[in-house]
Protein backbone atom coordinates (compact mmCIF):
# COMPACT_ATOMS: atom_id res chain seq x y z
CA UNK A 1 0.00 0.00 0.00
CA UNK A 2 2.27 2.79 -1.19
CA UNK A 3 2.04 6.32 0.02
CA UNK A 4 0.96 8.61 -2.76
CA UNK A 5 2.63 11.85 -3.72
CA UNK A 6 0.43 14.38 -5.48
CA UNK A 7 2.27 16.29 -8.21
CA UNK A 8 0.72 19.50 -6.98
CA UNK A 9 2.03 18.91 -3.46
CA UNK A 10 5.65 18.10 -4.25
CA UNK A 11 6.53 21.45 -2.73
CA UNK A 12 4.94 20.26 0.55
CA UNK A 13 6.78 16.96 1.07
CA UNK A 14 5.04 16.23 4.38
CA UNK A 15 1.80 15.72 2.47
CA UNK A 16 3.06 12.41 1.11
CA UNK A 17 2.37 10.80 4.47
CA UNK A 18 -1.30 11.77 4.19
CA UNK A 19 -2.32 9.79 1.08
CA UNK A 20 -2.25 6.05 0.46
CA UNK A 21 -3.40 3.71 -2.31
CA UNK A 22 -5.03 0.52 -1.06
CA UNK A 23 -3.02 -2.11 -2.94
CA UNK A 24 -3.99 -5.68 -3.72
CA UNK A 25 -3.83 -7.91 -0.68
CA UNK A 26 -2.63 -5.07 1.51
CA UNK A 27 -4.05 -4.04 4.85
CA UNK A 28 -4.07 -1.05 7.14
CA UNK A 29 -0.89 -2.37 8.76
CA UNK A 30 1.04 -1.80 5.50
CA UNK A 31 0.37 1.93 5.25
CA UNK A 32 -1.98 4.36 6.90
CA UNK A 33 -2.33 8.08 6.21
CA UNK A 34 -1.42 10.37 9.07
CA UNK A 35 -4.42 12.13 10.56
CA UNK A 36 -5.70 14.67 13.08
CA UNK A 37 -2.53 16.73 12.79
CA UNK A 38 -2.16 20.45 12.35
CA UNK A 39 -2.65 21.39 8.71
CA UNK A 40 0.73 21.85 7.06
CA UNK A 41 1.51 25.48 6.24
CA UNK A 42 1.08 26.03 2.52
CA UNK A 43 -1.66 23.44 2.21
CA UNK A 44 -5.02 25.18 1.89
CA UNK A 45 -7.18 22.92 3.98
CA UNK A 46 -10.92 22.46 3.77
CA UNK A 47 -11.26 22.06 7.51
CA UNK A 48 -13.32 24.06 9.96
CA UNK A 49 -12.21 25.39 13.35
CA UNK A 50 -12.74 23.82 16.77
CA UNK A 51 -15.45 26.36 17.65
CA UNK A 52 -17.29 25.38 14.49
CA UNK A 53 -16.98 21.68 15.35
CA UNK A 54 -18.37 22.26 18.82
CA UNK A 55 -21.14 24.66 17.89
CA UNK A 56 -22.22 23.95 14.37
CA UNK A 57 -21.85 20.20 14.39
CA UNK A 58 -22.79 19.15 17.88
CA UNK A 59 -24.25 22.03 19.88
CA UNK A 60 -26.69 23.65 17.51
CA UNK A 61 -28.76 20.60 16.54
CA UNK A 62 -30.21 20.79 20.09
CA UNK A 63 -33.59 22.22 19.31
CA UNK A 64 -35.01 24.05 22.32
CA UNK A 65 -31.96 26.16 22.97
CA UNK A 66 -30.69 29.67 22.24
CA UNK A 67 -27.23 29.09 20.81
CA UNK A 68 -25.14 32.16 21.54
CA UNK A 69 -21.60 32.71 20.25
CA UNK A 70 -19.48 34.91 22.45
CA UNK A 71 -17.34 36.57 19.84
CA UNK A 72 -17.29 38.61 16.67
CA UNK A 73 -20.39 38.18 14.60
CA UNK A 74 -18.58 36.52 11.71
CA UNK A 75 -17.86 33.34 13.68
CA UNK A 76 -21.53 32.52 13.90
CA UNK A 77 -23.03 34.42 10.99
CA UNK A 78 -20.71 33.18 8.27
CA UNK A 79 -21.39 29.58 9.18
CA UNK A 80 -25.08 29.96 9.89
CA UNK A 81 -27.40 27.46 8.21
CA UNK A 82 -24.63 25.52 6.52
CA UNK A 83 -26.08 22.30 7.89
CA UNK A 84 -29.63 21.06 7.53
CA UNK A 85 -30.18 19.66 10.99
CA UNK A 86 -33.87 20.22 11.13
CA UNK A 87 -36.16 19.77 14.13
CA UNK A 88 -39.80 19.15 14.86
CA UNK A 89 -40.21 22.48 16.72
CA UNK A 90 -40.24 24.61 13.59
CA UNK A 91 -36.45 24.56 13.30
CA UNK A 92 -35.93 27.14 16.03
CA UNK A 93 -32.24 26.33 16.30
CA UNK A 94 -31.46 26.95 12.65
CA UNK A 95 -33.89 29.78 12.08
CA UNK A 96 -32.05 32.09 14.43
CA UNK A 97 -28.41 32.67 15.21
CA UNK A 98 -27.16 34.71 18.15
CA UNK A 99 -23.83 36.43 18.79
CA UNK A 100 -22.51 38.94 21.28
CA UNK A 101 -21.02 40.95 18.42
CA UNK A 102 -17.63 41.58 20.02
CA UNK A 103 -15.78 44.62 18.71
CA UNK A 104 -12.36 46.16 19.25
CA UNK A 105 -13.48 48.03 22.37
CA UNK A 106 -14.49 44.71 23.98
CA UNK A 107 -11.09 43.24 23.23
CA UNK A 108 -9.54 46.20 25.04
CA UNK A 109 -11.98 46.56 27.94
CA UNK A 110 -13.48 43.06 28.18
CA UNK A 111 -16.83 41.78 26.97
CA UNK A 112 -18.39 40.26 30.07
CA UNK A 113 -20.87 43.11 30.47
CA UNK A 114 -21.83 42.81 26.83
CA UNK A 115 -22.23 39.05 27.25
CA UNK A 116 -24.58 39.41 30.18
CA UNK A 117 -26.69 41.97 28.35
CA UNK A 118 -26.91 39.71 25.33
CA UNK A 119 -27.95 36.67 27.37
CA UNK A 120 -30.75 38.58 29.05
CA UNK A 121 -31.81 40.21 25.79
CA UNK A 122 -31.92 36.87 23.98
CA UNK A 123 -34.06 35.24 26.68
CA UNK A 124 -36.41 38.24 26.58
CA UNK A 125 -36.66 38.07 22.81
CA UNK A 126 -37.53 34.36 22.93
CA UNK A 127 -39.65 34.01 26.07
CA UNK A 128 -40.67 30.43 25.23
CA UNK A 129 -37.04 29.26 25.27
CA UNK A 130 -35.49 28.70 28.69
CA UNK A 131 -32.24 27.00 27.77
CA UNK A 132 -29.04 28.42 26.32
CA UNK A 133 -25.64 27.25 25.12
CA UNK A 134 -22.82 29.78 25.01
CA UNK A 135 -19.86 29.12 22.77
CA UNK A 136 -16.48 30.66 23.33
CA UNK A 137 -14.59 31.84 20.24
CA UNK A 138 -10.96 32.78 19.64
CA UNK A 139 -11.54 36.39 20.62
CA UNK A 140 -13.33 35.76 23.91
CA UNK A 141 -10.88 32.99 24.83
CA UNK A 142 -7.85 35.19 24.25
CA UNK A 143 -9.11 38.05 26.39
CA UNK A 144 -10.09 35.57 29.09
CA UNK A 145 -13.74 36.46 29.65
CA UNK A 146 -15.14 34.25 32.41
CA UNK A 147 -18.20 32.94 30.62
CA UNK A 148 -19.11 30.43 33.35
CA UNK A 149 -19.24 33.16 35.99
CA UNK A 150 -21.54 35.31 33.87
CA UNK A 151 -23.75 32.34 33.05
CA UNK A 152 -24.01 31.52 36.75
CA UNK A 153 -24.88 35.11 37.57
CA UNK A 154 -27.74 35.03 35.07
CA UNK A 155 -28.96 31.66 36.32
CA UNK A 156 -29.01 33.05 39.88
CA UNK A 157 -31.03 36.03 38.72
CA UNK A 158 -33.34 34.08 36.40
CA UNK A 159 -34.04 30.77 38.16
CA UNK A 160 -36.15 29.37 35.33
CA UNK A 161 -33.28 29.32 32.84
CA UNK A 162 -30.37 26.94 32.45
CA UNK A 163 -27.15 27.71 30.60
CA UNK A 164 -24.42 25.48 29.22
CA UNK A 165 -20.98 26.90 28.50
CA UNK A 166 -18.73 25.42 25.86
CA UNK A 167 -15.13 26.59 25.94
CA UNK A 168 -13.88 25.48 22.55
CA UNK A 169 -12.22 28.39 20.77
CA UNK A 170 -11.32 28.08 17.10
CA UNK A 171 -7.71 27.31 17.92
CA UNK A 172 -8.64 24.47 20.31
CA UNK A 173 -7.42 21.69 18.02
CA UNK A 174 -6.22 21.00 14.49
CA UNK A 175 -9.75 20.93 13.11
CA UNK A 176 -13.42 20.82 14.02
CA UNK A 177 -12.69 17.46 15.61
CA UNK A 178 -11.02 19.19 18.56
CA UNK A 179 -14.33 20.94 19.17
CA UNK A 180 -16.30 17.70 19.03
CA UNK A 181 -14.13 16.37 21.82
CA UNK A 182 -14.38 19.50 23.95
CA UNK A 183 -18.14 19.82 23.79
CA UNK A 184 -18.65 16.10 24.56
CA UNK A 185 -16.60 16.41 27.71
CA UNK A 186 -18.08 19.78 28.69
CA UNK A 187 -21.61 18.41 28.39
CA UNK A 188 -21.00 15.36 30.54
CA UNK A 189 -19.09 17.38 33.11
CA UNK A 190 -21.62 20.19 33.39
CA UNK A 191 -25.00 18.77 32.54
CA UNK A 192 -25.38 14.99 32.59
CA UNK A 193 -26.94 13.86 35.83
CA UNK A 194 -28.72 17.14 36.57
CA UNK A 195 -32.19 15.96 35.52
CA UNK A 196 -33.94 12.74 36.54
CA UNK A 197 -36.09 11.51 33.65
CA UNK A 198 -39.33 9.56 33.47
CA UNK A 199 -38.44 6.10 32.33
CA UNK A 200 -41.42 4.92 30.31
CA UNK A 201 -40.11 1.66 28.94
CA UNK A 202 -38.13 -1.36 30.03
CA UNK A 203 -35.92 -0.66 27.06
CA UNK A 204 -34.26 2.74 27.23
CA UNK A 205 -31.45 4.01 25.04
CA UNK A 206 -29.58 7.16 24.18
CA UNK A 207 -29.10 7.60 20.48
CA UNK A 208 -25.69 9.25 20.21
CA UNK A 209 -23.84 10.90 17.32
CA UNK A 210 -26.95 11.53 15.23
CA UNK A 211 -27.68 15.05 14.03
CA UNK A 212 -31.04 14.79 12.27
CA UNK A 213 -29.74 15.86 8.90
CA UNK A 214 -32.92 16.35 6.87
CA UNK A 215 -34.79 14.14 9.31
CA UNK A 216 -32.48 11.12 9.77
CA UNK A 217 -33.08 11.07 13.50
CA UNK A 218 -36.85 11.13 13.12
CA UNK A 219 -36.67 8.14 10.79
CA UNK A 220 -34.60 6.20 13.31
CA UNK A 221 -36.80 7.19 16.26
CA UNK A 222 -39.75 5.73 14.35
CA UNK A 223 -37.98 2.36 14.22
CA UNK A 224 -37.10 2.49 17.91
CA UNK A 225 -40.66 3.47 18.82
CA UNK A 226 -42.01 0.61 16.74
CA UNK A 227 -39.75 -1.70 18.73
CA UNK A 228 -41.03 -0.28 22.01
CA UNK A 229 -37.63 1.22 22.79
CA UNK A 230 -37.69 4.60 24.50
CA UNK A 231 -35.06 6.99 23.19
CA UNK A 232 -34.30 9.01 26.27
CA UNK A 233 -32.05 11.50 24.53
CA UNK A 234 -30.58 12.03 21.12
CA UNK A 235 -27.11 13.50 21.15
CA UNK A 236 -27.90 15.91 19.62
CA UNK A 237 -30.06 16.06 16.47
CA UNK A 238 -33.63 17.13 17.23
CA UNK A 239 -32.62 16.60 20.87
CA UNK A 240 -33.99 18.42 23.90
CA UNK A 241 -31.58 20.08 26.30
CA UNK A 242 -33.20 18.58 29.41
CA UNK A 243 -33.40 15.09 27.91
CA UNK A 244 -29.67 15.29 27.31
CA UNK A 245 -29.13 16.16 30.97
CA UNK A 246 -30.70 12.80 31.79
CA UNK A 247 -28.43 10.66 29.60
CA UNK A 248 -27.06 8.82 32.63
CA UNK A 249 -30.31 6.89 33.05
CA UNK A 250 -30.34 5.00 29.71
CA UNK A 251 -29.62 1.27 29.63
CA UNK A 252 -27.59 1.45 26.43
CA UNK A 253 -25.80 4.06 24.34
CA UNK A 254 -26.35 3.42 20.66
CA UNK A 255 -23.53 5.22 18.90
CA UNK A 256 -23.78 6.25 15.27
CA UNK A 257 -21.05 8.83 14.53
CA UNK A 258 -18.18 7.57 16.66
CA UNK A 259 -15.95 10.31 15.26
CA UNK A 260 -17.88 13.12 16.84
CA UNK A 261 -19.47 11.48 19.85
CA UNK A 262 -17.52 8.45 21.07
CA UNK A 263 -16.11 10.58 23.86
CA UNK A 264 -19.40 11.00 25.69
CA UNK A 265 -20.18 7.29 25.26
CA UNK A 266 -16.81 6.37 26.69
CA UNK A 267 -17.39 8.68 29.64
CA UNK A 268 -20.91 7.37 30.22
CA UNK A 269 -19.49 3.87 30.21
CA UNK A 270 -16.81 4.80 32.72
CA UNK A 271 -18.90 6.96 35.03
CA UNK A 272 -22.30 5.26 34.88
CA UNK A 273 -21.56 1.79 33.49
CA UNK A 274 -23.73 2.28 30.40
CA UNK A 275 -22.40 0.11 27.58
CA UNK A 276 -21.58 1.51 24.13
CA UNK A 277 -22.89 -0.19 21.00
CA UNK A 278 -21.49 1.15 17.71
CA UNK A 279 -23.94 0.92 14.82
CA UNK A 280 -24.36 1.77 11.12
CA UNK A 281 -27.67 3.48 10.28
CA UNK A 282 -27.14 3.64 6.52
CA UNK A 283 -27.97 0.91 4.02
CA UNK A 284 -30.45 -1.94 4.19
CA UNK A 285 -28.21 -4.63 5.59
CA UNK A 286 -26.17 -2.56 8.07
CA UNK A 287 -29.27 -0.80 9.41
CA UNK A 288 -31.15 -4.08 9.76
CA UNK A 289 -28.24 -5.62 11.59
CA UNK A 290 -27.99 -2.56 13.86
CA UNK A 291 -31.66 -2.66 14.84
CA UNK A 292 -31.34 -6.37 15.45
CA UNK A 293 -28.42 -5.76 17.79
CA UNK A 294 -30.44 -3.26 19.81
CA UNK A 295 -33.26 -5.80 19.86
CA UNK A 296 -30.91 -8.57 20.99
CA UNK A 297 -29.62 -6.43 23.83
CA UNK A 298 -33.14 -6.21 25.25
CA UNK A 299 -34.32 -9.66 24.14
CA UNK A 300 -36.80 -8.22 21.63
CA UNK A 301 -35.00 -9.02 18.39
CA UNK A 302 -38.20 -10.39 16.85
CA UNK A 303 -39.55 -6.83 16.78
CA UNK A 304 -36.50 -5.66 14.88
CA UNK A 305 -36.87 -8.55 12.47
CA UNK A 306 -40.50 -7.61 11.77
CA UNK A 307 -39.36 -4.10 10.80
CA UNK A 308 -36.54 -5.45 8.65
CA UNK A 309 -38.92 -7.76 6.77
CA UNK A 310 -41.55 -5.10 6.22
CA UNK A 311 -39.19 -2.36 5.12
CA UNK A 312 -37.10 -4.59 2.90
CA UNK A 313 -40.17 -5.89 1.08
CA UNK A 314 -41.41 -2.34 0.55
CA UNK A 315 -38.18 -0.72 -0.62
CA UNK A 316 -35.89 -3.38 -2.10
CA UNK A 317 -37.43 -3.28 -5.61
CA UNK A 318 -36.79 0.46 -5.67
CA UNK A 319 -33.23 0.24 -4.44
CA UNK A 320 -32.55 -2.42 -7.04
CA UNK A 321 -33.96 -0.23 -9.82
CA UNK A 322 -31.25 2.31 -9.01
CA UNK A 323 -28.60 -0.34 -8.41
CA UNK A 324 -29.11 -1.65 -11.93
CA UNK A 325 -28.35 1.82 -13.23
CA UNK A 326 -25.56 2.78 -10.83
CA UNK A 327 -23.50 -0.40 -10.97
CA UNK A 328 -19.93 0.29 -11.99
CA UNK A 329 -20.24 4.06 -11.59
CA UNK A 330 -17.16 5.49 -9.92
CA UNK A 331 -17.46 7.60 -6.81
CA UNK A 332 -15.05 9.65 -4.71
CA UNK A 333 -16.35 9.37 -1.18
CA UNK A 334 -15.07 12.57 0.33
CA UNK A 335 -17.06 13.45 3.44
CA UNK A 336 -15.90 15.09 6.66
CA UNK A 337 -15.37 12.17 8.97
CA UNK A 338 -17.56 9.20 9.76
CA UNK A 339 -19.43 8.78 6.48
CA UNK A 340 -16.28 7.56 4.84
CA UNK A 341 -16.67 4.35 6.80
CA UNK A 342 -20.47 4.37 7.15
CA UNK A 343 -20.82 4.35 3.36
CA UNK A 344 -17.59 2.89 1.90
CA UNK A 345 -18.73 -0.73 1.73
CA UNK A 346 -22.47 -0.36 1.52
CA UNK A 347 -22.68 1.87 -1.56
CA UNK A 348 -20.58 -0.82 -3.22
CA UNK A 349 -22.59 -3.76 -1.90
CA UNK A 350 -26.07 -2.32 -2.26
CA UNK A 351 -25.78 0.16 -5.12
CA UNK A 352 -22.98 -1.47 -7.08
CA UNK A 353 -20.84 1.67 -7.10
CA UNK A 354 -17.04 1.56 -7.12
CA UNK A 355 -15.43 3.72 -4.47
CA UNK A 356 -12.25 4.95 -6.14
CA UNK A 357 -11.24 7.28 -3.33
CA UNK A 358 -12.05 8.00 0.29
CA UNK A 359 -10.98 11.08 2.13
CA UNK A 360 -11.58 12.78 5.39
CA UNK A 361 -11.18 16.40 6.34
CA UNK A 362 -11.03 16.00 10.08
CA UNK A 363 -11.05 12.27 10.74
CA UNK A 364 -8.45 10.59 12.87
CA UNK A 365 -6.33 7.62 11.86
CA UNK A 366 -8.97 5.35 13.39
CA UNK A 367 -11.48 6.60 10.83
CA UNK A 368 -9.04 5.82 8.05
CA UNK A 369 -8.53 2.34 9.49
CA UNK A 370 -12.28 1.77 9.27
CA UNK A 371 -12.68 3.40 5.85
CA UNK A 372 -9.73 1.69 4.17
CA UNK A 373 -10.78 -1.67 5.57
CA UNK A 374 -14.23 -1.22 4.12
CA UNK A 375 -13.43 0.14 0.66
CA UNK A 376 -12.29 -1.97 -2.27
CA UNK A 377 -8.73 -2.44 -3.46
CA UNK A 378 -7.31 0.33 -5.60
CA UNK A 379 -8.98 3.17 -3.72
CA UNK A 380 -6.98 6.29 -2.88
CA UNK A 381 -7.30 7.34 0.76
CA UNK A 382 -6.47 10.99 1.53
CA UNK A 383 -6.31 12.82 4.83
CA UNK A 384 -7.08 16.56 4.98
CA UNK A 385 -6.65 17.20 1.24
CA UNK A 386 -6.11 20.61 -0.21
CA UNK A 387 -8.05 21.91 -3.17
CA UNK A 388 -5.34 21.18 -5.73
CA UNK A 389 -5.02 17.60 -4.54
CA UNK A 390 -8.76 17.19 -4.88
CA UNK A 391 -8.59 18.46 -8.45
CA UNK A 392 -5.64 16.23 -9.29
CA UNK A 393 -7.39 13.19 -7.82
CA UNK A 394 -10.54 13.88 -9.84
CA UNK A 395 -8.53 14.30 -13.01
CA UNK A 396 -6.69 11.02 -12.55
CA UNK A 397 -9.48 8.91 -11.05
CA UNK A 398 -12.24 10.29 -13.33
CA UNK A 399 -15.14 9.68 -10.93
CA UNK A 400 -18.74 9.84 -12.17
CA UNK A 401 -19.72 11.64 -8.99
CA UNK A 402 -18.31 12.81 -5.68
CA UNK A 403 -19.98 12.93 -2.27
CA UNK A 404 -18.52 15.83 -0.34
CA UNK A 405 -19.15 19.23 1.20
CA UNK A 406 -20.15 22.47 -0.44
CA UNK A 407 -16.69 23.94 -0.91
CA UNK A 408 -15.02 20.99 -2.68
CA UNK A 409 -18.36 20.24 -4.35
CA UNK A 410 -18.41 23.56 -6.14
CA UNK A 411 -14.82 22.98 -7.22
CA UNK A 412 -15.85 19.62 -8.68
CA UNK A 413 -18.64 21.21 -10.66
CA UNK A 414 -16.12 23.45 -12.37
CA UNK A 415 -14.47 20.40 -13.88
CA UNK A 416 -17.89 18.92 -14.71
CA UNK A 417 -18.01 16.31 -11.97
CA UNK A 418 -21.42 16.16 -10.31
CA UNK A 419 -21.47 16.17 -6.53
CA UNK A 420 -23.85 15.35 -3.73
CA UNK A 421 -23.64 17.14 -0.42
CA UNK A 422 -22.49 14.46 2.00
CA UNK A 423 -22.93 16.69 5.04
CA UNK A 424 -26.30 18.34 4.46
CA UNK A 425 -27.76 15.99 1.78
CA UNK A 426 -29.87 16.84 -1.23
CA UNK A 427 -33.28 15.20 -0.86
CA UNK A 428 -32.87 13.47 2.48
CA UNK A 429 -33.43 11.89 4.87
CA UNK A 430 -30.96 9.26 3.72
CA UNK A 431 -31.28 7.00 6.77
CA UNK A 432 -33.77 4.19 6.97
CA UNK A 433 -34.77 1.91 4.13
CA UNK A 434 -36.72 4.61 2.35
CA UNK A 435 -33.96 7.11 3.01
CA UNK A 436 -31.40 4.84 1.40
CA UNK A 437 -33.56 4.71 -1.73
CA UNK A 438 -33.81 8.51 -1.65
CA UNK A 439 -30.01 8.62 -1.53
CA UNK A 440 -29.83 6.27 -4.52
CA UNK A 441 -32.31 8.50 -6.33
CA UNK A 442 -30.20 11.57 -5.61
CA UNK A 443 -27.10 9.79 -6.92
CA UNK A 444 -28.97 8.68 -10.03
CA UNK A 445 -30.31 12.18 -10.65
CA UNK A 446 -26.83 13.65 -10.31
CA UNK A 447 -24.95 11.08 -12.40
CA UNK A 448 -27.44 11.08 -15.24
CA UNK A 449 -28.53 14.68 -15.23
CA UNK A 450 -28.45 15.79 -18.88
CA UNK A 451 -27.09 19.12 -17.74
CA UNK A 452 -23.69 17.53 -17.17
CA UNK A 453 -23.56 16.37 -20.80
CA UNK A 454 -24.37 19.86 -21.94
CA UNK A 455 -21.87 21.36 -19.53
CA UNK A 456 -19.13 19.16 -20.98
CA UNK A 457 -19.41 21.01 -24.25
CA UNK A 458 -17.45 24.21 -24.56
CA UNK A 459 -19.24 26.49 -26.99
CA UNK A 460 -15.93 28.27 -27.54
CA UNK A 461 -14.30 25.27 -29.18
CA UNK A 462 -16.56 22.19 -29.38
CA UNK A 463 -18.93 21.44 -32.17
CA UNK A 464 -22.48 21.64 -30.87
CA UNK A 465 -24.61 18.84 -32.31
CA UNK A 466 -27.72 20.19 -33.95
CA UNK A 467 -29.13 16.89 -35.16
CA UNK A 468 -29.98 15.57 -31.68
CA UNK A 469 -32.74 16.57 -29.30
CA UNK A 470 -32.42 16.95 -25.59
CA UNK A 471 -31.42 13.69 -23.85
CA UNK A 472 -33.37 12.55 -20.82
CA UNK A 473 -32.00 10.79 -17.77
CA UNK A 474 -33.61 7.51 -18.78
CA UNK A 475 -32.07 7.72 -22.25
CA UNK A 476 -28.67 8.10 -20.64
CA UNK A 477 -29.04 5.58 -17.83
CA UNK A 478 -30.81 2.85 -19.80
CA UNK A 479 -28.78 3.01 -23.00
CA UNK A 480 -26.65 -0.03 -22.18
CA UNK A 481 -29.08 -1.91 -19.96
CA UNK A 482 -30.22 -5.35 -21.14
CA UNK A 483 -33.92 -5.46 -22.06
CA UNK A 484 -34.82 -7.79 -19.21
CA UNK A 485 -33.48 -5.31 -16.67
CA UNK A 486 -34.92 -2.26 -18.39
CA UNK A 487 -38.36 -3.87 -18.50
CA UNK A 488 -38.15 -5.81 -15.24
CA UNK A 489 -41.72 -5.81 -13.87
CA UNK A 490 -40.55 -5.94 -10.24
CA UNK A 491 -38.08 -3.06 -10.19
CA UNK A 492 -39.42 0.46 -9.93
CA UNK A 493 -38.29 4.02 -9.31
CA UNK A 494 -38.81 5.70 -5.94
CA UNK A 495 -42.51 5.91 -5.13
CA UNK A 496 -42.33 7.63 -1.74
CA UNK A 497 -43.58 11.11 -1.03
CA UNK A 498 -41.77 14.37 -1.67
CA UNK A 499 -41.77 15.01 2.09
CA UNK A 500 -41.56 11.69 3.84
CA UNK A 501 -41.39 13.23 7.31
CA UNK A 502 -44.82 14.81 7.31
CA UNK A 503 -46.69 11.58 8.05
CA UNK A 504 -43.99 10.39 10.41
CA UNK A 505 -44.50 13.41 12.63
CA UNK A 506 -48.21 12.65 12.92
CA UNK A 507 -47.71 9.00 13.76
CA UNK A 508 -48.81 7.61 17.14
CA UNK A 509 -47.48 4.51 18.88
CA UNK A 510 -48.81 2.16 21.54
CA UNK A 511 -47.58 3.01 25.05
CA UNK A 512 -44.21 1.55 26.01
CA UNK A 513 -44.09 -1.55 28.21
CA UNK A 514 -42.89 -0.80 31.70
CA UNK A 515 -41.86 -3.25 34.41
CA UNK A 516 -42.51 -6.33 32.34
CA UNK A 517 -39.01 -7.43 33.20
CA UNK A 518 -39.33 -6.69 36.90
CA UNK A 519 -42.61 -8.60 37.16
CA UNK A 520 -41.21 -11.54 35.24
CA UNK A 521 -38.30 -11.98 37.65
Amino acid at each position, binding site marked *: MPYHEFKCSRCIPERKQHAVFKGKGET*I*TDALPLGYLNTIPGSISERGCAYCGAKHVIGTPMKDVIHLSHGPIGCTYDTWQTKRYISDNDNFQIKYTFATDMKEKHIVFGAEKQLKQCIVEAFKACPHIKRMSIYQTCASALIGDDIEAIAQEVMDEMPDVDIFVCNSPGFGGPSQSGGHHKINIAWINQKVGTVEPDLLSDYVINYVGEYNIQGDQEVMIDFFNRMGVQVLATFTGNGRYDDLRAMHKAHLNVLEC*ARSAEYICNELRKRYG*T*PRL*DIDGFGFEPLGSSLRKVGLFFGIEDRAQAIIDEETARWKPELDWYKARLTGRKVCLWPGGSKLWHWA*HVIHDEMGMDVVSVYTKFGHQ*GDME*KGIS*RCEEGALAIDDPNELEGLEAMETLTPDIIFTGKRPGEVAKKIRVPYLNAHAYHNGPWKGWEGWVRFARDIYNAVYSPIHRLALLDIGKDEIPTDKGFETQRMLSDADLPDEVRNDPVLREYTGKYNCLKDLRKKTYPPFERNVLAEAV
Partner: protein
Amino acid sequence: MSGSMQDKIAQLENYIMKKCLWQFHSRTWDRKRQNERILGMTRQLLLGEPVSTETPEERCYWVDAVTMAEAFKVRCPWLADMSREEIAGLMDGLYERIDFLTVTGSLNQELNDQHY
Protein backbone atom coordinates in the same frame (compact mmCIF):
# COMPACT_ATOMS: atom_id res chain seq x y z
CA MET B 1 -14.27 -28.33 4.26
CA SER B 2 -12.27 -26.23 1.84
CA GLY B 3 -9.09 -24.19 1.98
CA SER B 4 -6.29 -23.97 4.51
CA MET B 5 -6.70 -22.66 8.02
CA GLN B 6 -5.17 -19.40 6.86
CA ASP B 7 -7.80 -19.03 4.11
CA LYS B 8 -10.52 -19.69 6.61
CA ILE B 9 -9.20 -17.10 9.02
CA ALA B 10 -8.98 -14.64 6.13
CA GLN B 11 -12.66 -15.15 5.34
CA LEU B 12 -13.69 -14.42 8.91
CA GLU B 13 -11.26 -11.49 9.09
CA ASN B 14 -12.78 -10.06 5.92
CA TYR B 15 -16.23 -10.14 7.47
CA ILE B 16 -15.05 -8.38 10.62
CA MET B 17 -13.04 -5.69 8.87
CA LYS B 18 -15.84 -4.92 6.39
CA LYS B 19 -18.96 -5.24 8.51
CA CYS B 20 -18.04 -4.60 12.12
CA LEU B 21 -17.08 -1.51 14.07
CA TRP B 22 -16.37 -2.90 17.55
CA GLN B 23 -12.70 -3.64 16.78
CA PHE B 24 -11.88 0.01 16.13
CA HIS B 25 -12.21 1.71 19.47
CA SER B 26 -9.70 4.46 19.88
CA ARG B 27 -7.03 3.30 22.32
CA THR B 28 -4.87 0.19 22.67
CA TRP B 29 -6.35 -0.88 26.01
CA ASP B 30 -9.83 -0.35 24.65
CA ARG B 31 -9.24 -2.36 21.49
CA LYS B 32 -7.59 -5.18 23.43
CA ARG B 33 -10.58 -5.43 25.71
CA GLN B 34 -13.03 -5.36 22.82
CA ASN B 35 -11.12 -8.04 20.88
CA GLU B 36 -10.73 -10.27 23.89
CA ARG B 37 -14.33 -10.04 25.07
CA ILE B 38 -16.16 -10.13 21.76
CA LEU B 39 -14.01 -12.69 19.98
CA GLY B 40 -13.86 -14.71 23.20
CA MET B 41 -17.65 -14.83 23.35
CA THR B 42 -17.92 -15.65 19.65
CA ARG B 43 -15.58 -18.57 20.27
CA GLN B 44 -17.75 -19.79 23.15
CA LEU B 45 -20.90 -19.48 21.02
CA LEU B 46 -19.39 -21.40 18.11
CA LEU B 47 -18.24 -24.11 20.51
CA GLY B 48 -21.68 -24.30 22.09
CA GLU B 49 -20.33 -23.20 25.47
CA PRO B 50 -22.44 -21.09 27.86
CA VAL B 51 -21.90 -17.34 27.71
CA SER B 52 -22.58 -15.07 30.65
CA THR B 53 -24.85 -12.13 29.81
CA GLU B 54 -25.56 -11.04 33.36
CA THR B 55 -24.23 -7.49 33.29
CA PRO B 56 -25.14 -4.81 30.71
CA GLU B 57 -21.50 -4.75 29.67
CA GLU B 58 -21.47 -8.50 28.99
CA ARG B 59 -24.77 -8.28 27.16
CA CYS B 60 -23.41 -5.59 24.89
CA TYR B 61 -20.38 -7.70 23.99
CA TRP B 62 -22.65 -10.69 23.49
CA VAL B 63 -24.82 -8.74 21.01
CA ASP B 64 -21.85 -8.26 18.69
CA ALA B 65 -20.63 -11.81 19.31
CA VAL B 66 -23.94 -13.46 18.56
CA THR B 67 -24.43 -11.39 15.40
CA MET B 68 -20.99 -12.42 14.25
CA ALA B 69 -21.38 -16.11 15.11
CA GLU B 70 -24.61 -16.21 13.10
CA ALA B 71 -23.01 -14.45 10.15
CA PHE B 72 -20.02 -16.81 10.23
CA LYS B 73 -22.31 -19.83 10.11
CA VAL B 74 -24.24 -18.44 7.13
CA ARG B 75 -21.23 -17.25 5.17
CA CYS B 76 -18.89 -20.11 5.97
CA PRO B 77 -20.81 -23.38 5.65
CA TRP B 78 -17.54 -25.24 6.12
CA LEU B 79 -17.73 -24.35 9.82
CA ALA B 80 -20.36 -27.06 10.24
CA ASP B 81 -17.83 -29.71 9.19
CA MET B 82 -15.18 -28.63 11.66
CA SER B 83 -14.50 -30.37 14.94
CA ARG B 84 -14.54 -28.47 18.23
CA GLU B 85 -10.76 -28.52 18.34
CA GLU B 86 -10.54 -27.13 14.85
CA ILE B 87 -13.02 -24.36 15.63
CA ALA B 88 -11.07 -23.51 18.76
CA GLY B 89 -7.86 -23.33 16.73
CA LEU B 90 -9.58 -21.24 14.07
CA MET B 91 -10.86 -18.74 16.60
CA ASP B 92 -7.49 -18.53 18.34
CA GLY B 93 -5.90 -17.75 15.00
CA LEU B 94 -8.58 -15.18 14.23
CA TYR B 95 -8.09 -13.50 17.59
CA GLU B 96 -4.37 -13.27 17.00
CA ARG B 97 -4.92 -11.83 13.53
CA ILE B 98 -7.45 -9.19 14.65
CA ASP B 99 -5.17 -8.20 17.51
CA PHE B 100 -2.38 -7.77 14.99
CA LEU B 101 -4.46 -5.70 12.57
CA THR B 102 -5.94 -3.43 15.19
CA VAL B 103 -3.35 -3.30 17.96
CA THR B 104 0.13 -4.78 17.64
CA GLY B 105 0.53 -4.13 13.90
CA SER B 106 -1.57 -0.97 13.81
CA LEU B 107 0.03 2.18 12.46
CA ASN B 108 -2.47 4.35 14.30
CA GLN B 109 -0.36 6.77 16.30
CA GLU B 110 -3.22 7.75 18.58
CA LEU B 111 -3.59 4.29 20.09
CA ASN B 112 -1.21 4.96 22.94
CA ASP B 113 -2.22 8.54 23.58
CA GLN B 114 -2.59 9.05 27.31
CA HIS B 115 -5.65 11.26 26.87
CA TYR B 116 -8.87 9.65 25.83
